């Protein structure tokens, strides 16, 4: 780590409007988020030479680039599901540190909620209609929620995790969402509300599941040198790593209680020269309550099997063991399908002291961890407000 080394920072970040955008197209959400992130940084499209995004069509990034009027000489559209944006920002950091790019714009946009109203069916197919090995799940009526339920049931069996402990994650996220005027659901809920609610796939209740939203976000990755001239305090990308264990079939997962975070977490912390004990605030992908329990274990915030005890009694609250998802998370604030960008934007806000009512005092180190697919991919970013 020589003083002359180019160091990657995030110099601007913003979310689009959310959670319901019937008047916007998917690409318009990208544009709105990009406009805001560039304005936050004090940059214009003319400053951008790199572009990254992830979506569900081949050549997705070049399509959005054309829409935005960009002719980038660096582009990336790695799609690892919900963890895509942690991966894209990690890649962008390598790009600016190597000199392959100077200013990389990373955007996300989705109108998943509005589109549902124009689609037949009840959603949540979890592989139905998908090509390849996913059929080995969906033929037997498995669903997206069902996959996470299979993992939750196994965790309960092995470690005694309770539905009430899972519910505690949803309750804490809702508490944070109550401070977020944009959040999709803001009214307080109790553990009782969660566990007496409708079961979607045992042991997961409706309130154990993320919301379905429209929305997006964007951030800008550049070098510390470039950011020194800009208007916002830089957020340093201290370390990043990602991993995958399987594609879409949980039957191919060696242990349903261990996610790829068990690989990406230690690697990211090692690259950052930090440990979980150094983290002041966490943004953890919360597709389902069980996802968070597995993630706090796999990232090393507690031992395997202790995640239930870790999250209960406000463990993820502002004065808890690990203040987590300070915007209300995917469980209450916004989940447009691949929420990873929201984790990064909220981590940046916390490190810049812009968290408002849910600001974690003196937050110096943040972790953003995305989970994609059926617990298939994990990507960890360690961010800091001070030069390492």
């Amino acid at each position: 780590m020589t003083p002359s080394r180019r160091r990657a920072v995030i110099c601007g970040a913003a979310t689009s409007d959310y959670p319901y955008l019937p008047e916007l197209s998917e690409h318009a959400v990208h544009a709105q988020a990009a406009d805001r992130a560039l304005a936050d940084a004090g940059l214009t499209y003319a400053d951008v030479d790199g572009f990254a995004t992830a979506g569900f069509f081949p050549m997705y990034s070049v399509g959005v680039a054309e829409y935005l009027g960009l002719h980038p000489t660096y582009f990336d559209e790695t799609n690892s599901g919900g963890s895509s944006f942690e991966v894209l920002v990690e890649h962008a950091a390598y790009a600016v540190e190597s000199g392959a790019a100077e200013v990389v714009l990373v955007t996300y946009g989705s109108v998943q909620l509005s589109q549902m109203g124009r689609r037949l069916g009840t959603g949540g197919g979890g592989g139905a209609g998908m090509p390849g090995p996913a059929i080995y799940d969906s033929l037997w009526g498995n669903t997206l929620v069902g996959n996470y339920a299979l993992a939750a049931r196994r965790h309960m069996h092995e470690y005694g995790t309770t539905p009430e402990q899972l519910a505690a994650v949803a309750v804490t996220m809702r508490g944070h969402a109550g401070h977020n005027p944009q959040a999709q659901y803001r009214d307080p809920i109790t553990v009782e509300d969660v566990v007496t609610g409708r079961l979607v796939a045992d042991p997961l209740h409706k309130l154990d599941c993320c919301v379905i939203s429209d929305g997006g976000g964007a951030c800008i990755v550049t070098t510390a040198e470039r950011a020194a001239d800009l208007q916002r305090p830089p957020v340093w990308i201290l370390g990043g790593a990602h991993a995958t264990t399987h594609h879409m079939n949980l039957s191919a997962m060696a242990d349903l209680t261990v996610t790829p975070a068990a690989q990406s977490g230690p690697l990211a912390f090692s690259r950052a020269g930090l440990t979980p004990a150094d983290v002041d605030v966490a943004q953890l992908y919360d597709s389902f309550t069980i996802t968070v329990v597995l993630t706090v274990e796999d990232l090393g915030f507690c031992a395997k099997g202790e995640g239930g005890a870790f999250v209960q009694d406000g463990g993820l609250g502002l004065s808890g063991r690990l203040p987590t998802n300070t915007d209300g998370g995917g469980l209450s604030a916004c989940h447009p399908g691949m929420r990873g960008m929201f984790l990064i934007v909220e981590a940046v806000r916390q490190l810049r002291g812009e968290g408002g009512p849910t600001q974690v005092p003196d937050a110096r180190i943040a972790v953003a961890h995305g989970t994609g697919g059926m617990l298939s991919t994990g990507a960890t970013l360690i961010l800091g407000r001070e030069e390492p």
Partner: protein
Amino acid sequence: MSAADLGAGRWFPDEMPSPAANAETVGWWEAAAQHRLVVQRCSQCGATRHPPGPVCPVCRSLASEWAELPGTGRVYTYTIVRQAFLPALADVIPYVVAVVEPDGAGGTRMVTNVVDIDPEEVEIGMPVEVVWEDIGPELALPRFRPRTTGAGT
């Protein structure tokens, strides 16, 4: 209509997704159509895998064979699906999706169903045995029911 109305040997409606087999997977489906539960086994190192695929994930050999299994196993984990993701399933819920560890499969697991039991009675570790649902002349699906024969360990 309920699951019982589908008739003997039927648990799911015809409107379920159907598989598209390819050169690597057709052997598994052909065996299933004959009511033989098989697992793909590497011809070189003996490692098993599921779903079927072209390459052994342990030794990367392209050679594999279909190892016939006794059709018994245990529930590794399960969920009771209570919300229908296809309209046709509205009359079938609640149903059990399980990950089963078939005996003789070298620890390889498969996603399947546990049928012929009150979903609330399913437990992890429960001994189960295969039961076949004929979907069509070329397609049968293995599901599992509580083990009724030779319930040794």
